[in-house]
């Protein structure tokens, strides 16, 4: 069960793109996500949900408002501190797997750990093996990242997001490119990880059926939150 401590908090967040021609994509967003919770953000294409996720993940900066990750105000952090926060606290799963084609599946999984501590320790290697076993890609762990099926690539990306044992995983349409069987498998996996490791999940999707499998649905439309319910 999720506890009630907010791990991620957004206060009055606005996002405006452009300087001469300005487009506001987020309007006064106030949100809190508790630790260990399993959440979804839904909305149609262009609603601002991906922008919201990028701001939560410190990949993008809000034009106004505050973002707190683990109690620390992230929008005030220096680039180096943000890089460390992303490496140690946040895991990302994108719609496109974004694996590095120069590396094997196992090496891709190990990358965040190598960024953190250079040479992977036996414990980290064991964790990588465990995660790859969990997501079911042990048999292709030495395959080059581009020589795997779409489902295998996305599962590798999930294992990579979890290698540093992050407290928060942000997933942007993680099954957007997968068939229905693989979609089912990936969501079951994310839920299992949430329960097994207590990782907080925020999943952005346009698919209401997928969202209904999470503990909380936040709906966004034209940059404004129009629904925020626990299922």
């Amino acid at each position, binding site marked *: 069960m999720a506890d009630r401590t907010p791990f991620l908090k957004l206060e009055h967040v606005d996002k405006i793109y452009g300087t001469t021609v300005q487009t506001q994509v987020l309007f006064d967003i106030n949100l809190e996500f508790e630790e260990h919770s399993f959440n979804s953000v839904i909305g149609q294409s262009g609603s601002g949900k991906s922008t919201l996720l990028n701001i939560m993940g410190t990949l*993008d900066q809000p034009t106004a408002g505050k973002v707190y990750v683990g109690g620390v105000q992230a929008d005030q952090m220096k680039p180096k501190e943000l890089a460390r926060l*992303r*490496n*140690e606290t946040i895991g990302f799963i*994108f719609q*496109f797997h974004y694996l590095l084609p120069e590396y094997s599946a196992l090496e891709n999984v190990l990358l965040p750990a*190598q960024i953190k501590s250079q040479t992977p320790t036996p414990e980290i290697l064991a964790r990588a093996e465990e995660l790859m076993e969990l997501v079911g890609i042990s048999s292709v762990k030495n395959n080059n990242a581009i020589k795997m099926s779409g489902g295998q690539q996305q599962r590798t990306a999930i294992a*990579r997001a979890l290698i540093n044992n992050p407290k928060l995983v942000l997933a942007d349409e993680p099954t957007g490119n997968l068939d229905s069987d693989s979609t089912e498998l990936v969501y079951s996996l994310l839920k299992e990880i949430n329960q097994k490791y207590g990782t907080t999940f925020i999943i952005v999707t346009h698919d209401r059926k997928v969202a209904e499998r999470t503990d909380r649905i936040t709906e966004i439309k034209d940059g404004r939150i129009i629904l925020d319910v626990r299922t």
Partner: protein
Amino acid sequence: MFSFRVATRFLKANKTQTIFIIIGIAVGVSVQVFVGTLIQSLQTSLVNQTIGNSPDITILSTTDNARIENWEAMEQKIRNIDGVTNVTAVADGQVFVNNLPQATVCLLRGFNLTEADGIFHYASTIYQGRMPEKTNEVLAGKEFQTDWSLSVGSQLNISTNSAPQTNITLTICGFYNLGVAAVDRLWLIGSFDTANTTFNFGDNVTSINIQVSDVFSADAIAAQINSTLANTHIKVTNWKVENSQLLSGLNGQSLSSYMIQAFVLVSVILGISSILAITVIQKSKQIGILKAMGVNDGTAALIFLFEGLLLGIGGAVLGVALGLGLMIAFQTFAVDPVTKLPIISLYINYSFLLLSGVIAVTAAVVAALVPARRSSKLSVIEVIRNG
């Protein structure tokens, strides 16, 4: 180091491109090494031909009798100066050879024969006979032998300006060939004793000849000798003063060589910079992903600096080898049709080769600065949003 490992992986993943970049740098470096070595070899052989058999620095007397006193003490002081390799006192003067079909003037040069050979290198050019062993034995040059059909054992009856009536008989014990017609026709080489007997110099000499390790620093060493000896009765001259035209020719040659090398360097820098800039664009997705996973801007920049460094090292090693190969090929194929000897003898300056390599590596790293900066500034969100 994480950035180094990523750099090597990026280079390995794109082997063909990496090999082409290394070859590109190597071609630039090889041109630099080839042109530089060629010019240096040319200069060295020119300098050797011009001053190889003559002293780099000469000390002459300014007194009326043109003699230098206390020369042994001077010699000792000069030997202690850095860069001096050979010092030899010379007692010489004009002699008239009276028993040849035509009255002939020669220069009888009295040396410490062992030491002087370090400067004049006559011993190795003796093609007939041997070195003088006794007083009044002399070596004569090839031209002199040819002009007067002389042989080992021929005797020369000489007289001097100071004692025209005195007749001294010199015996030719051998013939040398220094390859400079004027010298080979004029010089008679003997011992100090021979010169002293002829000219009555006593303990005095007429000049001190000096050779230095770096011929181009002869002027500086000459100045140092002048101040060390602090003697108003002598004059210190060096080959640079006496060969100013050659020197300006050599300087012009060096300048043109530097210009060529500078242009090659600029083209190498531009080449690497533009290729790495394209690589950053090619790898922008990967850089974006790495940044999303926590790679900071500095590390992202280092990846491309390491790529530049590795490409530079590869290009420099291959380029130096290629340049030397070109030089050896040039030596093998560019030969004098008559003598079959190389037109220019190869002179390898290891410091220059090392410097060329270091310059190439530095240039590659400098060229990588722009792409590295680009990588550092790359926005994660742009990569994520544009897929």
